[in-house]
């Protein structure tokens, strides 16, 4: 079982000054599997994802990638291994056009000359967005002119259209309408069917738990910085998930 894990975290913890964001987290995602991570606001979902993507360094514990222990030095390092991320804040550069955002920090240049291949990037951006069916006016428009859902779709497209082995999505559907949300979920299912890219996606529980349950193979619940629940989706129900999340608020 362990050797089919794409990415695994063992006893990972992280503090921010006095705040313990993550403590003793154990988590694993297999090849071709979609893991849903749910938890309250502030439970530590984003922090965990930022550790898995090399943005934060954990204070303790060990990460494994394709079975090997690994120390992720940076986002670039993680990306070079095939770990792609859609951050909760989307990491969009408002002043830059859509096509440059899609190629952010992966710009195409006329090697060996360092000049940008803008035309090629525009073409690829157009292709990428068309192939998922995201409709925006023009790829040369600055991102600041797009709606929240469109921005999110572009952020997802950016990470999907790299040759990722692991895809981390932090609240991928939060600002999306039914249409865009459906597109993204369908995209995840397609990737899964191709079997080469497992996803690991984190959601807020309030958001249509039913829809998420159909996409995910397995669900983990993160509470107060630890994982308290790990079950295959088919063995759980919406009611049970909601129950778990809301249990501690009940009088």
């Amino acid at each position, binding site marked *: 079982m362990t050797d089919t894990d794409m990415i695994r975290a063992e006893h990972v913890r992280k503090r921010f000054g006095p705040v313990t964001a993550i403590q003793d987290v154990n988590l694993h995602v297999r090849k071709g599997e979609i893991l849903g991570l749910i938890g309250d606001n502030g439970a530590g979902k984003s922090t965990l994802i930022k550790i898995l993507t090399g943005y934060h360094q954990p204070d303790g514990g060990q990460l494994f990638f394709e079975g090997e222990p690994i120390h992720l030095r940076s986002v670039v390092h993680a990306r070079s291994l095939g770990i792609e991320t859609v951050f909760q804040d989307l*990491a*969009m*550069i408002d002043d830059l056009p859509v096509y440059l955002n899609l190629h952010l*920090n992966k710009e195409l240049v006329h090697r060996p000359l360092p000049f*940008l291949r803008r035309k090629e990037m525009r073409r690829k951006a157009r292709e990428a967005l068309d192939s998922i069916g995201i409709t925006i006016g023009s790829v040369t428009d600055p991102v600041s002119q797009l709606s929240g859902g469109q921005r999110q779709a572009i952020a997802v497209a950016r990470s999907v259209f790299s040759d990722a082995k692991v895809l981390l999505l932090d609240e991928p559907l939060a600002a999306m309408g039914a249409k865009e949300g459906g597109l993204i979920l369908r995209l995840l299912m397609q990737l899964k069917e191709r079997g080469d890219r497992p996803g690991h996606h984190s959601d807020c529980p309030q958001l249509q738990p039913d829809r998420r349950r159909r996409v995910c193979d397995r669900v983990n619940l993160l509470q107060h910085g630890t994982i308290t629940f790990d079950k295959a989706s088919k063995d759980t129900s919406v009611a049970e998930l909601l129950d778990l999340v809301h249990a501690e608020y009940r009088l």
Partner: protein
Amino acid sequence: MATNTLIGSLVRIRELSILLVTIACAGYFALTSTGFTSLDNGHTIAQYIAPWAIVGAGEAMLLICGEIDLSAGFVFTLAPFVLVLLNNNGLPLFVALLATVVICALIGTVNGLIRTLFNLPSFITTLGMAFLLQGLSLIISNGSPVPAPADTWVRTTFGGARWSELTWALVIIAVMQIVLSASRFGIYTQATGSNPVGAAESGIRTSRVKVVNFAVTSALAGFGGILEGMRVGSFDPTNGGFNTMFFGVAAAVIGGTALLGGSGTVVGALLGALLLGIVYDGFNLTGVNANAFNVVLGVAILVAMFLNTYLSVLRRRASAVRGRT
């Protein structure tokens, strides 16, 4: 609809409005003063704008990545004295010049490292550096001017020849604009100023981007100071300073660079410098009091800031209209 798209596309070219204003000013002075259109006067204007454009090119890059360098004007002041010091200690003039530019880049690197390692605002960091460098310049020079090194090819090439200072300024503007708009580093500079957290999440080393831009700004300012001294024929510790720095920043801002980062162009800084130079010179020729120039400068900066914000609103509206049709 047709007028709408026309206005839209005009508004989208940032530099156009400033260019129109510049041409209008030039036309006004050409009509109202004698000698404005002469080649000699063109040379005078070139002398004004070259240092502003060179310092402005660096400041534009820094402003775009969300920083500012208040010390650039004193790097401009100090560089010629470092050059003399190195030259007097046996370095050939050309080697001393290269070494001086490298030293200036190091000063900028220090600014950038203090800014990024200790997370101090660049406003404070570079203000401190400004006074430090001013003091150093006065100490090294003993507070009095020294003659520029004797005539050699170095002197002629770097400021001595009639149009050489302006030529260097134009080359610098062209190179920096290409760096900004055609290289990955240019994209990183914009991304760092527009959304520092998002840029970092995308794996862009935002601190490094800032440090490099600080280093480039200082190197350019130092080089500009040397050119200026070589042209005048004497190195003066009262040259440069806050005045040159603020004209550089003003040129960048008038040219459409956002003070809060994220957008702007280097060519804009050249146009800003050109506008300032033409107005400055025109006022001299028409005998307007130098103090009035400051009033105009102030108004120009305010109008530029206003246009910047207002035009981007117009731009958004124009493309919203386009999106709907």
